[in-house]
């Protein structure tokens, strides 16, 4: 790479790749369980980008605003994930379906 690569840029680039991997996973994976894992990977990718840009603005401590946002985001992602898991389990118990495919 031309400019000296800082450490935050490595993580920022990984965030971009993880994001598209999570999005592809969300559409391609059939099973509910893996779709929920895909949404979480999606969220983690976005938070990784937030925090790596925060490290770029390091003065005597890294930029606290993205840190607070990411902590809020992690809790939101976990609660949404728990809700999705509850729905998926209930659907499995009621109808034995674990994918969207066999719906007409």
């Amino acid at each position, binding site marked *: 790479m031309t400019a000296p690569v800082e450490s935050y840029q490595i993580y920022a680039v990984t965030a971009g790749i993880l994001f598209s991997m999570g999005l592809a996973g969300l559409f391609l994976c059939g099973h509910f369980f893996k779709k929920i894992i895909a949404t979480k990977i999606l969220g983690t990718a976005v938070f990784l980008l*937030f925090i790596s840009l925060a490290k770029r603005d390091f003065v005597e401590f890294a930029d606290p605003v993205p840190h607070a946002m990411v902590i809020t985001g992690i809790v939101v992602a976990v609660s949404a994930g728990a809700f999705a898991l509850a729905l998926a389990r209930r*659907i499995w118990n009621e109808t034995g379906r674990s994918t*969207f495919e066999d719906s007409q």
Partner: protein
Amino acid sequence: MNGELTTLFPALTVITPITGAVVVFLLPARLRARAGLPAAGFTVAAAILLAWGVVTEGAVRHELGGWGAPLGIDLHADGLSSVFVLMTAAIGLLVSFYAKPFFALAGEKGGASELFWPLWLFLWASLNGLFLSSDLFNLYVTIEVMGLAAVALAVLSGRPPALVAGLRYLLAALGGSMAYLMGVALVYGEVSTLDLGLVSEAVEGSPAIRVAFGLMIAGLLVKTAVFPLHFWLPAAHSSAQAPVSAILSALVVKASFYLILRLWVDVFDVAVTVAAGQALGVLGSAAVIWGSYQALRQRRLKLMVAHSTVGQIGYMFLLFPLITIGYREAADAPWLAHAWTGGIYQALAHGFAKASMFLAVGVFVLAVGNDDRRSIGDLVARLPMTTFALALAGISLIGLPPSGGFVAKWMLLKATFSSGQWWWAPVILTGSFLTAGYVFMVLRQAFAPAGKPIELNPVPRTMEVTALLLGATAILIGLRAEEVLILLDVGAPFDEAVEAGEGGEP
């Protein structure tokens, strides 16, 4: 009214419904329904206060936590947001009146229907929060609150089709809001501020901003269920219970449309290109044709109304190509105001009409037991008020003269011709014909004599009255358009609508 007090109103519109939700949740179940209505009443009062404050004082800004723009979060209420807050209040109040008897009836059949009131008040608070917030990350959190509350309401009945549709809706909503958040991350990385006003000043057309803008709009398009990304809407809105479907179709979908409009016009007006506007226009017209055509083919009434939502949302997106073209030629081109008011009017009229249609269909399903189109025979004799409500809502959806829908489509048509983009006109007209198709098909069947007289189970009168009131409002805002336009013009980007003497009657 000194200025200091009006700054409280934006916070009040968010706090009252949430306090109502917490109080109602803590009450025992039998008191819960009785406490729900007063909480809805207080929220409507706060919304009216806000609208009144905006009209008298102009745009109102509330700095949460007292810290101000770059660090803290602000609630900013201008004409556009207070119009949507008022719409949510009006529809919300009438749906709440409808929901009280509905859940009293549906309560015994199981499901967690006691939880309707806390969830609905929470959703209402997140809608108000979204219309007023002027911070990009806070908008993400509000969208998540709205998404979770909407899905929780959609699966309230506990039946398997509702659960599957709810999970598909939740996963689509999560994907959409994560794409939006990725856009926010790129914007913050570039201009390192989150307040909408500061971002719009600091932003220029750099590649990161264009990608961020694209991601945010794509995420919000998923949540607004525009044509290619609408796969989740019909199942979710039709399998939900009647008042919930009305809330989802009339209000929740409008929130992400409002956000796209806010980002498109106020924040990223530098990064917006003509091609992007045309692309959204094409998506909108595809939605109009596809949604209305699908609605024509449905046998189940609720599915038909849900597909018509997809169609009507398409009309709102015709607004974007008409506005974006304006920047190249002349910033104060005469048709900008028409397109702007036309698009927002379409959102308002569709809200009232769709809510009234879903409530009317709900009454019909309660009375007859199934929502199959063929069993609607002789409805006019047995449920006259519901048929009248269905007719009023249908008129507004098609866009026949006195209704709000007509004002919206008429203004869009005027803007299409005076802006030279004539190709949107055939889309609007075919859309109206298709909508007329399925509305008159239902009405014809309602007036046709039924084969064998089937007995109906009794339906509480308040439910029919609320459906009728909503349909009447859809017509009313067409007749009395001045008030809405005055409120709409506070801080509007193209504020020539009133001076140009257009007023309500075109």
